[in-house]
């Protein structure tokens, strides 16, 4: 390519490889805690107990794998759509190092029990400061690069990237406001019902702006690119984008249905959650119709099925979520295993499939080559698909069973089951869940192997061709 500049793809590759390392850590911890659910002897106090490890699992995957994938793929999309290299390549390199140090420190601090106890905002305040610095560095590079872009028009992926950058900043800073009580201890600035309301405003939008908008940005960039098909509708993108970004922030209280948080807040949360079906399915339809221009891609292009299944799980997720928020359904499934079943369809289905497909696209591009093995990619696909489905479906069944047993009454209105009776019934399902996790993990190992071999292939290719001027 005749360019007067070089993209700094080493940083992008560095982020991807780092994210894979953290992903493996997060997934292995996930496997361990799934075993701890049915085998309490697998808890090793103090560092390896379920209570401490669950947050290592969620944070490791949300921030280590999730953010670790968001940073490089955003850099990739921003530079390609701008037709410019990163404004500050050295800053991006520094960000890679800070990111890895921060995630390592975060993991260690959580193993040690330093936690703020707010879900997905567990990291203690010194680490929060580090995360904010990291985000500012990232935002500077994204915006500075965008301002120097060649094309005036910004493609839909860039809107989602911009929204992600500003929303995460607002959410993260507000919910982590706290009074330090020591070097690694603090208390939330907000108390009781107010604390709950702020946390779930944050918590649900962390899902929105860490697991939804960034992955929509990737989906709408990499899917048309990989399949060589134009996006079905830009108008639909505009509609979906603004209504999603507007609606998401109202929905946090659906996590607090039937709690002492004021009813009007709960109802508002539920109503906006139902509204969100519209923009979510706007994206789903846009995805389907884009591939719909040529369904034969499902056969001829190995990445098509990744993207189509990903957007399908996004579609299912965004109908299931609103359904759960309705009071009568919430009654039954709240605080049961149904909810982790829901979350894992989103993370193991939508997020992971999109991320993997995007990485499969990016890594060969860096070296101007092709994927090492499409066959291995197909094995990876089927394993993670089967693992994820077995996992989610099992959790939904368990959840309904738990909810039903908790609500079951005898003819005279007394409770039919003790809590322990409802617990014991989970064990067979929890065994299955561990099995599903193992299948998924093996699938991900195939993925990582394929990525590493592609890099090896690319490096060999580089070494054999004289350096381009």
């Amino acid at each position, binding site marked *: 390519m005749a360019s007067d500049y070089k993209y700094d793809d080493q940083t992008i590759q560095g982020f991807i490889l780092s994210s894979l390392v953290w992903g493996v850590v997060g997934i292995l911890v996930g496997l361990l805690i799934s075993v701890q659910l049915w085998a309490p002897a697998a808890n090793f106090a103090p560092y390896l107990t379920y209570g401490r490890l669950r947050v290592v699992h969620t944070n490791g995957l949300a921030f280590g794998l999730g953010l670790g994938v968001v940073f490089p793929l955003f850099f990739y999309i921003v530079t390609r759509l701008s037709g410019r290299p990163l404004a500050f390549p050295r800053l991006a390199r520094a960000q890679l190092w800070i990111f890895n140090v921060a995630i390592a420190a975060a993991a260690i601090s959580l193993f040690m*029990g330093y936690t703020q*106890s707010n879900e997905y905002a567990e990291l203690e305040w010194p680490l929060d400061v580090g995360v904010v610095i990291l985000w500012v560095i990232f935002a500077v590079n994204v915006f500075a690069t965008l301002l120097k872009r060649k094309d005036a028009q910004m493609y839909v992926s860039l809107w989602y990237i911009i929204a992600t950058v500003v929303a995460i900043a607002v959410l993260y800073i507000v919910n982590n406001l706290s009074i330090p009580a020591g070097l690694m201890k603090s208390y939330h600035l907000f108390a009781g019902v107010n604390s709950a309301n702020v946390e779930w405003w944050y918590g649900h939008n962390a899902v929105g702006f860490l697991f939804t908008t960034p992955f929509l940005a990737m989906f709408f960039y990499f899917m048309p690119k990989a399949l060589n098909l134009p996006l079905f509708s830009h108008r639909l993108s505009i509609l979906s984008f603004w209504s999603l970004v507007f609606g998401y922030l109202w929905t946090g209280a659906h996590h607090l249905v039937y709690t002492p948080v004021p009813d009007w807040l709960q109802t508002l949360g539920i109503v906006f959650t139902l509204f969100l079906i519209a923009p979510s399915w706007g994206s789903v339809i846009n995805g389907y119709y884009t591939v719909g221009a040529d369904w034969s891609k499902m056969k001829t292009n190995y990445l098509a099925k990744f993207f189509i299944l990903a957007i399908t799980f996004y579609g299912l997720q965004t109908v299931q979520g609103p359904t759960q928020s309705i009071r009568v359904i919430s009654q039954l499934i709240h605080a049961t295993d149904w*909810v982790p079943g829901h979350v894992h369809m989103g993370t193991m289905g939508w997020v992971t499939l999109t991320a993997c497909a995007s990485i499969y696209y990016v890594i060969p591009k860096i070296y101007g080559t092709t994927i090492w093995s499409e066959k291995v990619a197909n094995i990876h696909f089927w394993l993670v698909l089967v693992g994820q489905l077995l996992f989610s479906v099992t959790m939904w069944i368990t959840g309904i069973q738990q909810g039903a047993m908790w609500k079951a*009454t005898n003819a*005279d209105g007394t*409770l039919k089951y003790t809590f322990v009776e409802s617990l014991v019934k989970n064990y067979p399902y929890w065994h299955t869940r561990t099995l599903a996790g193992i299948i998924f993990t093996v699938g991900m190992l195939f993925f990582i192997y394929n990525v590493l071999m592609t890099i090896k292939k690319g490096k060999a290719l580089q070494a054999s061709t004289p350096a381009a001027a």
Partner: protein
Amino acid sequence: MAGEIYKKPMALAAMATVTILIGSIATMAYPMLRADMHPKLDALKPFTALQLAGRDVYQREGCNNCHTQVIRPLPTEVARYGDFSKAGEFAYDHPFLWGSKRTGPDLAREGGLRPDKWQYDHFANPQAFFARSNMPKYGWLKGRMLDADEATAHLAALATFHPELKPDAAAVKAQLAGKDELDALVAYMQWLGHAVPRRQGGAVDLALQNPLAGQVAAVVKGKALFEEKCSACHGDEAKGNEGVAPSLLDDVFLEAKGDLPDGAYFALIAQGSDVKKALERPGYKDGGMPAFGGELPKEDIWAIVSWLRNQKAHEASEGHHDDKEEHK
């Protein structure tokens, strides 16, 4: 005009920010200005240094990953755990610890539900109480002594919001002397839910007679029920468990000599320790009998009474000399 925004990154960022702030202000910031987000029950007591240290341990160990602390206003939930949670109970909770998953039971009304000894023993070995429980053992917290300076700093931080928590370093030191993390955690367990009085059941009717008296089938059923619901605390043979739950076969009932009528047995099982007052007997200090009226139908409670009566008669006929030896 409308299309221009897709050519200007900073303008798009500004507009996206405004868009996300609308919902944030409406559902997060604005509610903060309202009194209904800051209620406090008069009966709510601030944490002592020991209780706060226990809460810190609860946070550190991630207990909130498996236990909720919020009871929903649903009939079955109230029957299982007690009165539904009130907004005013959480004024000192920075942050709230409601959790989102009930791998174990809700703990919002755990305080005062069982004696301290039960809590200590259960933390040390949950499987001794519920054979198939999946709770990890927490006996290792024992002997990890509390740091008074740290506790003072923690109280001082919370005093930023709640002046009544302002610590006196000397008093904190005295309160925590010789206390370990398990002591603190148990103290916190007993603090939970104290601001809402336990639901008082119906009146105690001492004239009630066991309708199943003399039926062998009831005794057999009662034995099975006892083993399932009662033996974890009272022992397999109902001979008691020192410090946790008393023997039900001896002459002492609620720490006073002399048996009680069927109606008292029924009331105690159905309504728990709350009926001690009506019976004018002390019982274990801070004890400890949960109410089973929510989960056991009347005939099941009577079956348990039948079995207990039968056991008692059996013991009396055999004499309990060997028994006494064991108990010493």
